[in-house]
């Protein structure tokens, strides 16, 4: 909890201190990138690496949102189906008409806001464990998406909607083709790091996840913090949906399993699954690591069912490592 104590250090320094504590993920990421580069030297060329970042952007943004919920002591399992709903509803509302893009995006964020506030309120005021609340929300959103579209996608996303996830700025010096999604990713990452490490909200979220009673006694509005965390998570899911729909087009399974990938990424980034500890750059790196791992498995020619297996092994490994570290550090509470 040293983040809460030091308040005058600049954000980037704080982030670095945090990174130092949860460093393993950065080493893993580095090893994976080196490994991929050995198999395919072109991977590290700017254009291809930016392409890889574009592909990773949705998961990184999801992980950033998920981190707020996880450090405050919850889970958001509804992210994936909110991504699906975003893509399907976007296609249905826009029906390929470029003139609709802006209000459609507004409507989608409106839906995200509703979902987040609902998740947070039920978890806070009714004291339903977030696991149950968001699992229910997962099913509800999926049901709405299928009911609304009749089980098969209808309509399509116009090109100016898809541009966010697909378009590139060509002939940028040094970088080559620069995807819009990467620019969006960099801006959002900076925003999330600021929000998490430099604002009251981030610190309160950590405090609530660490010890809810103590946080309440210290005068923190626990309900407000929870609701904010879930709202950030839902809005990040809508953003990821807009990018994914842009990247790959409309399909009914676009968001399947993304919530678990986001949780894996956050855990991989050293966040404590019961809340109270977490770091934004590391969580973003966790998402990038997962994506790099999938790419590596592809390059190695391993069958894709192995992806799920590897993902499971990572969660066990990361949780085990965190527990071992906590024990070694002599903490009372394990991770």
């Amino acid at each position, binding site marked *: 909890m040293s983040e809460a104590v030091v308040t005058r250090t600049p954000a980037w320094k704080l982030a670095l201190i945090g990174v130092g504590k949860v460093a393993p993920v950065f080493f893993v990421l580095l090893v994976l990138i080196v490994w991929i580069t050995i198999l395919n030297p072109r991977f590290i060329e700017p254009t291809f690496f930016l392409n890889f970042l574009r592909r990773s952007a949705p998961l990184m943004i999801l992980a950033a949102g998920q981190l707020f919920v996880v450090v405050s002591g919850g889970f958001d399992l509804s992210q994936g189906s909110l991504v699906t709903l975003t893509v399907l509803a976007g296609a249905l509302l826009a029906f390929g008409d470029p003139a609709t893009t802006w209000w459609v995006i507004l409507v989608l964020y409106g839906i995200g806001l509703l979902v987040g506030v609902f998740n947070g309120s039920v978890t806070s005021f009714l004291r339903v464990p977030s696991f149950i609340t968001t699992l229910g929300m997962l099913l509800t959103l999926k049901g709405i998406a299928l009911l609304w579209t009749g089980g098969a996608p209808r309509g399509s996303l116009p090109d100016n909607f898809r541009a966010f996830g697909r378009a590139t700025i060509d002939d940028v010096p040094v970088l080559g083709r620069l995807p819009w999604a990467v620019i969006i990713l960099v801006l959002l990452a900076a925003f999330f790091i600021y929000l998490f490490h430099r604002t009251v909200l981030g610190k309160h979220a950590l405090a609530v996840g660490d010890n809810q009673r103590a946080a309440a006694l210290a005068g923190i509005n626990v309900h407000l913090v929870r609701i904010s965390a879930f709202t950030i998570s839902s809005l990040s899911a809508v953003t990821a949906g807009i990018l994914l729909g842009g990247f790959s*087009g409309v399909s009914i399974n676009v968001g399947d399993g993304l919530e678990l990938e986001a949780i894996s990424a956050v855990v991989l980034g050293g966040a404590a699954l019961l809340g109270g500890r977490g770091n934004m750059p590391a969580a973003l790196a966790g998402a990038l690591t997962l994506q790099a791992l999938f790419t590596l498995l592809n390059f190695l020619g391993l069958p894709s069912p192995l992806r799920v297996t590897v993902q499971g092994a990572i969660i066990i490994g990361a949780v085990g490592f965190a527990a071992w570290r906590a024990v070694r550090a002599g903490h009372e509470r394990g991770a």
Partner: protein
Amino acid sequence: MHRLLTALTLLFVLAGLTTALAQSGEFYDPEQLAFELAAMDMEPEGPEGQPWIQAIAPEYIDTSEYATEGPWTVCFSNAGVNNPWRVVGYTTMEAEVELHPDIATFVHVDAEGSDNKQISDISGLLASGDCDILIVSPNTTAALTPAVEAACEQLPVIVFDRGVNTDCPVSFIKPIGGYAFGAAAANFIVEQLPQGGNVLALRILPGVDVLEHRWAGAERIFADAGLRVVGAEFAEGSNAMTKSIVEDYLQLYGTIDAIWMDAGATAVAAIEAFEDFGAPYPIITGEDQQDFLLKWQEEGLTAVAPTFPTYQWRTPIIAATMILSGEDVPSFWVLPQPVVTQETLESYIQPNMPPLHYALCGCEDMPGFPERWGGR
């Protein structure tokens, strides 16, 4: 929470292992392959322009023992309505029911992709005693065989789409099959690449017989022609995964000359990967989804689209009324399975239909078209 997580992770591992194991199964039947390849060139019997009541090399059986007075109750145990292909198919089937005033009641039970649910669905339908005839679209072959056998003892049964390991149903209805599908696509690629080249195969999932047959039908053709299959990847029907995999292969090999697909739903995503990469379009095989056909026309692709026609959902209803009227039906009802080619492409494009509408629904003259199928 810890225990829950452990359970979750265990689930992940198990899911991974079972799919990995399922992959090692062998799905290659040379006799069936030979039959299907021959069937593609046979002239079907039946009225021109209505492929859903045509049949290839049919052997009719007498059904007079099942004849009863209408109105009838037709019951349907459906494996699921869980993908766009099945959505289009089931919509077509519902419309077909309306064309038959003798069918007073149509009972549909959706197994939602679960063997267990479908087994209990079937026994529930049997116990109700209301059904005059039962149509089954089995979720998986082996698991549903006993349930279908039990049903055969009580009433006439029609099986379609996927099969069962018993010949007790009065009629088994399906298009020519997966081997012919896979072979049609592979042969096209081989013809287009006389000098050889890199082929990337994109598949949905391992272990599903219909899909395994498609790959089994293609694999040997590529091997015999000496084409280099740089990869056969499972993209789980996901656009994003398809696009990522194609990008990775483009990076790794520089050029991919052809893409072979076992299902067309993600074909457009694969094509977009080439666009975004700045690589020339590959030779590509898809299916009869509107989005792919439209892309094919707009970009002037070198493409072919074998089909697994959704008009097969009309046939079981027609067969049911034939059986209940005591008319002869083919016991093994093989429906024609057209291949969309450059020459026929134009006639299958329907810009007013949804992106994943299947052109071969045979539903254009049915009540409620096109709104009922999501068109406008």
